[in-house]
């Protein structure tokens, strides 16, 4: 329910005396109700981009504009699924999920949402466990559930399924797509899995070294046949684009 426009967005970190350019004058237009996946080598600036979008990090330069339809809005309901689980060790899994619903006073509504996601994420049995009693993949699911419970308009996901096996991954991929389609969200999804990037995204953005180097439009619809020739060709191109990224383009705002 909200679009994002980036104009010349830059982020420079200081490391001792040196500058680390995490984002280099990025231009990107993420349309309302679109699903964008971001891929790129480790350290290329993906997390930094998401952190700036969710105001956890300040930008060094450039501009971010959120839009709703044709009007500019200042603070969309935006939330991130962090790269690390970041669960509160003193809260049970259930209470960790509830945490994002602090503003909702209606007890029934809170329980409805939490129950729904506990079920969906196959965490029902562990709802009373504490974070150090669950496995890495389970923790990642809790973190995902926590943000989905919150029902933001823009969801930023930083490798949300990275620690999951193919079985769970498949289920949750489809679940996220379902949420996207039914609830009209804008989703920015970071992943290292090329198949996942193609399967999930309507568009795939490739980053390298703080720059946007490629932008592929896949398909508006999510009923893709990953074994089609077309998808295989896209996969080869995307893989190539990640591995070797000489062509530097930063402007995909069109």
């Amino acid at each position: 329910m909200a679009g994002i426009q980036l104009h010349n967005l830059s982020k420079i970190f200081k490391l001792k005396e040196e500058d680390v350019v995490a984002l280099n004058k990025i231009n990107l237009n993420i349309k309302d109700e679109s699903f964008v996946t971001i891929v790129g080598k480790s350290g290329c600036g993906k997390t930094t981009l998401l952190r700036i979008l969710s105001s956890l990090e300040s930008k060094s330069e450039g501009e971010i504009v959120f839009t709703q339809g044709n009007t500019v809005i200042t603070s969309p309901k935006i939330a991130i699924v962090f790269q690390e689980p970041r669960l509160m060790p003193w809260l049970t899994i259930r209470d960790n999920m509830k945490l994002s619903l602090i503003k909702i006073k209606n007890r029934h509504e809170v329980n409805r949402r939490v129950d729904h996601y506990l079920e969906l994420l196959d965490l029902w049995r562990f709802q009373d466990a504490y974070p150090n009693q669950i496995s890495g993949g389970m923790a990642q699911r809790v973190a995902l559930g926590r943000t989905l419970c919150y029902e933001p308009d823009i969801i930023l996901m930083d490798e949300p399924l990275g620690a999951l096996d193919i079985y769970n991954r498949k289920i949750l991929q489809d679940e996220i797509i379902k949420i996207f389609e039914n609830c009209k969200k804008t989703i920015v999804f970071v992943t290292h899995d090329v198949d996942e990037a193609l399967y999930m995204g309507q568009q795939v953005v490739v980053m390298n070294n703080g720059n946007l180097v490629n932008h592929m439009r896949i398909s508006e619809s999510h009923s893709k046949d990953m074994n089609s020739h077309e998808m295989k060709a896209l996969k080869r191109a995307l893989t190539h684009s990640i591995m070797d990224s000489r062509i530097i383009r930063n402007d995909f705002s069109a």
Partner: protein
Amino acid sequence: MKNYRGVVLPLLLILIWGIGSQYGLFNSFIVPSPLRVLSTGWNLIAKGILLKHLSVSLWRVFAGFAIAFFLAFPLAVMVGLSKKIHAYLVPSLEFIRHIPPIAMIPLLILWFGIGETSKLSVIVLATFFPIFMNTFSGIVNSNVDLEEVGVNFGFTRAEIFLKITLPQAMPSVFTGIQLGLGYSWRALMGAELIAASSGLGYMIIEAETLSRIDIIFVGVMVIGILGYAIDWFFFKIAAYFFRWEGKSNGRDTTPQFIKNI
């Protein structure tokens, strides 16, 4: 089951004390025999003197501690969350932190008279800083990564503090409370130097001028045991409210500060 361990050392000391007294190894003017102390203690109890002093002091300790806590804790929160308030207040607090409360007695009498207020203020001065500094330290050392989760979900500053920062600061806060409670008891002597006519501190001070070291022993024992007991109860209650469940991985998730009491 393993509680016997805690009494080994005290029993050993009492044994040495008893044997030493029996064989006249200690000067009995300064170290009265355990029996003497016991009979003095019994006497003070029987006459109701001990109970009177004890109840007065207990009240002072609780009141003083409570005031100190309700000053120190919110102040530490404010100072911990706002650099500005920190800059204005902390240098002055640092100054006060080093001043012996006993040296302040003339001023305290001037400001608060010779009633309960000035006595309580001595206790407050002694108790304030452990609570303040430990709470402060707990707050500023909390994990920023977890606080970002709160920011992410649109928490207000108060919500972030209550739901994320404070739970992490609790071990530190509890250390502060424990230290503070200890210093409340310790400050009794100083407090009851000001115009007291009852209280354990007064009892000890009077016993000293009267060279009744047996009474001092009784007073010291009572303070030690009572202080210990209150500390213990306090943490049983705290543990009840703060119990984190689940133990495994060889890792017990009950907060360590509760586990170790």
